[in-house]
């Protein structure tokens, strides 16, 4: 038995919003792979849960007319990984969420939960940051769109209000078309592991594939929230794709991140990894974008 005092299964998003609004102590639950496990550990003793589990409104993956990819917040990680609609466009995210927990966890956990947790180690977060994802949130007064760059308010905190529900993650065409992207997760083992550090690189090259036209670098666990490296990104635009740039990127990102010492890894070690996986992710992203790195 889980230690919960109240449980309510919402019948729709509007119903969930009303239920959350009516109970200041209520907490939303979707896939359950965080909430139930934390409850088992006693972290939410006596919790009140409002379940979004299985709501059909939240389960679709679609493409809008202007090319915006819309992922329902209730989609599981494995649904995203296996989506024939997403893979050709944002394979970086499809592969990133394929590194969460285990196959069973990926059949249960949802992208919405991963985003709403607000944790810096969420495997989807660096890719979503690099893709300039926009979060669609619904509350009693209607919908609002929040760029993911404005979403995180601190460790485990987001700007989602108590009675708001994340309904979808939106990725506009201009943020994926023509780009190559790659996410690298560093962990001590390859499964059932929380990221020690993660880096997503999304790059667009010039028509001749020799210079950087657009670059996004995002890290997880390199700061209290997932972060981008705007200075490094700006520095790289217009530069020739060569070994000198690769080297400089790794060095430059270190001025924009602030990892901490934790039992998982020291700050010094995280900085070392950040430098290296940023370079490796960039190399792979360039290859995916059709480019080559010259010495």
């Amino acid at each position: 038995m889980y230690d919960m005092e109240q449980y309510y299964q919402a019948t729709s998003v509007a119903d969930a919003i009303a239920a959350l609004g009516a109970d200041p102590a209520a907490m939303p639950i979707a896939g359950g792979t965080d909430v139930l496990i934390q409850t088992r550990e006693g972290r939410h003793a006596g919790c009140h849960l409002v379940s979004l589990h299985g709501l059909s409104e939240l389960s679709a993956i679609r493409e809008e007319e202007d090319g915006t990819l819309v992922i329902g917040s209730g989609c599981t990680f494995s649904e995203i990984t296996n989506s024939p609609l997403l893979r050709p466009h944002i394979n970086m995210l499809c592969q990133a969420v394929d590194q969460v927990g285990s196959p069973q966890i990926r059949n249960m956990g949802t992208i919405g939960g991963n985003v709403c947790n607000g944790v810096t180690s969420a495997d989807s977060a660096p890719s979503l940051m690099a893709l300039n994802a926009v979060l669609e949130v619904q509350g009693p007064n209607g919908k609002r769109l929040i760029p993911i760059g404005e979403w995180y308010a601190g460790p485990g905190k987001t700007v989602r209000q108590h009675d708001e529900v994340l309904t979808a993650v939106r990725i506009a065409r201009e943020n994926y078309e023509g780009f190559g992207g790659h996410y690298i997760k560093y962990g001590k083992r390859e499964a059932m592991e929380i990221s020690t550090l993660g880096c997503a690189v999304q790059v667009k090259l010039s028509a001749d594939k020799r210079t950087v036209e657009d670059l996004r670098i995002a890290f997880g666990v390199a700061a209290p929230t997932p972060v981008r490296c705007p200075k490094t990104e700006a520095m790289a635009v217009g530069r020739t794709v060569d070994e000198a740039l690769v080297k400089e990127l790794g060095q430059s990102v270190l001025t924009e991140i602030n990892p901490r010492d934790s039992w998982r890894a020291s700050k010094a070690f995280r900085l070392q990894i950040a430098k290296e996986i940023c370079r490796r992710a960039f190399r792979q992203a360039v290859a995916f974008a059709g480019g080559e790195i010259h010495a």
Partner: protein
Amino acid sequence: MLKIIHVKVNGKEEELAVDVRECLTDTLRDRLGLTSVKKGCEVGECGACTVLIDGKAVNSCCYLSVWADGHSVLTVEGIKGPNGELSPIQTAFIEEAAVQCGFCTPGLIMTAVEIVGTNKQYNRDELRKLISGHLCRCTGYENILNAMERIVAENLARQQKLN
């Protein structure tokens, strides 16, 4: 607080009164006597409680029983043949000596059922990843992977014969 749910368990429609706080592992074990579903870590790490819900492998320890309402659940008890024979998957596990203490086995068998259900070919590395949600402290996984490889190959051969 009890709630009535309707679940198809191993092909049979069941009407159950479950506590809303209950996890599916407990419902299957205690209300239906399906003790192939093992209680291991109970936090989604070990995979001993793995069952299929609508064909997908999930950790039943992190799954509220009320969520199963209207869905179909499969456990090891549900994969035997019409006369109680072992399934080809179970036979492969035995013949490849993929079973030692047996505690992780039912969960792994259910993941194998999911894998075979895709009718796809997998190499050993892919299989390694697909069983990464299961902990086995006896075998060292080698024989489990041997069994998995064999099941996948046998299934594909069967599919080819049918086509």
